[in-house]
């Protein structure tokens, strides 16, 4: 399986790398990082600001680009399926061909402004964590995008669902947290908050970054809970594991749908 998947991934990645989308994606992070460094210097706050932008933009772009990618590849997928290739290899080939360039793009765009300044005073471990969470979010949301594109035959509906998922994780979620805190004022909320964080990959990534930066004041409600309950490395590990679940589950669901689909 792996050799065929690798072949498909290689050529799909070549296609993505040559698209204008990817160049714009890299440029975006580069420019944002460059701007933040010029105005603030390389302290923890610059990394944190960059982090919050990365953690919200990566899921949005991955979801939208991922669904469009699979819709555009529909006829080509049929052609490839008519070759002696099993569906599993083709699925992972398409997935790798999308996520490879996207991961590389975000890592390159985010780190270049720092690297060109010889680190710019940023903690390399924090920067590495930022890249790690960006890669994890790319892998998770690309799998979710695949699930959406396989579930909705209609392009427009699929794109709507992709943006809906992002709104849910990035905007509606914060509102829900606020509402819960307000509604159950005075009750112990640690466990429900922990559950809510686990249910949102973007918040998970944010908490991981905050735990590492060790800025309690900026942690927000769910971050404070993580700090208190899990603290330092245990919390980091728990959050990483939860993120892995967020990658494997949709990727598996997508594979199942892809294997059963009539093209």
């Amino acid at each position: 399986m792996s050799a065929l998947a690798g072949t498909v991934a290689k050529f799909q990645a070549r296609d993505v790398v040559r698209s204008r989308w990817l160049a714009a994606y890299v440029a975006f992070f580069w420019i944002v990082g460059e701007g933040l460094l010029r105005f603030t210097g390389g302290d923890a706050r610059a990394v944190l600001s960059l982090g919050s932008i990365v953690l919200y933009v990566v899921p949005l772009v991955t979801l939208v680009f991922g669904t469009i990618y699979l819709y555009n590849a529909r006829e080509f997928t049929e052609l490839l399926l008519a070759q002696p290739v099993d569906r599993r290899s083709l699925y992972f080939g398409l997935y790798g061909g999308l996520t490879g360039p996207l991961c590389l793009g975000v890592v390159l765009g985010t780190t270049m402004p720092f690297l060109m300044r010889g680190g710019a005073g940023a903690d390399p471990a924090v920067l590495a964590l930022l890249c790690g969470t960006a890669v994890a979010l790319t892998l998770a949301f690309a799998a979710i995008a695949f699930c959406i594109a396989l579930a909705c035959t209609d392009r427009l509906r699929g794109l709507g669902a992709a943006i809906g998922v992002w709104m849910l994780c990035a905007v509606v979620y914060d509102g829900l947290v606020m509402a819960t805190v307000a509604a159950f004022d005075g009750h112990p909320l640690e466990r429900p908050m922990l559950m809510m964080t686990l249910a949102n990959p973007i918040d998970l990534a944010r908490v991981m970054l905050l735990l590492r930066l060790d800025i309690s004041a900026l942690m927000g409600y769910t971050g404070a809970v993580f700090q208190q309950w899990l603290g330092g490395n245990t919390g980091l590990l728990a959050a990483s594991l939860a993120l892995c679940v967020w990658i494997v589950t949709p990727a598996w669901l997508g594979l199942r749908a892809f294997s059963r689909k009539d093209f």
Partner: protein
Amino acid sequence: MIAARDLCKRFGGTPVLRDLDLDIARGRVTAIVGPNGAGKTTFIKALLGLVKPDSGLLTFNGAPVGAAPAYRAQVGYMPQIAQFPENLTGADFLALLRELRGVAETDERLIDEFGIRASLDKRLRVLSGGTRQKVNAAAAFLFSPTLYVLDEPTTGLDPVSSGILKRRVLEEREHGSTVILTSHILADVDELADDVVFLHEGQARFAGNVRELKRQTAQATTERAIAALMLGERAA
């Protein structure tokens, strides 16, 4: 070479193939004809493993289709619409197929006959629809398969290229390959087909050689005979 027995497929409750029984002989050109929605594309997709039948049996050289993808190494498929990743070049696309099949030695006669070798270095996005269709056709003939599946092969091709493709189809038959094609252009069917399968509402209403078809419908040309079949179904 290919046999379908009681093949059924529904899409969202609508039956597309209804207990289809069909045999396709080796070394002949079989044209599958029929009105829109008759099940032509679904049958071809089932044969390629793209569509999974609900029930019934479909075999290729005696082995059930869909168990393992290896049989597709013997199939050259030319889809109706040529859609490629737009930032790849034609050469990239052909290289991808070569790597997937693990075959380095390929038959590139059609590339030269179509005169598209220079276009292969350009991105597929910038090629005209006709040139893309030529790349599509060339890809199906690249690996000297034993079975060709050509879905509306001449659509979008100019008369000269269409002629080149048709000559090549007949040549492949001379060398013992089997060809299945669908076409709405009855003149093409007339020119190429040895056997005709007439699909209507998911069943084969006629399957046999061209002479038999003409005799049964009392028509002089295949074109008229197929038209008579279609009109007959409409009247019934």
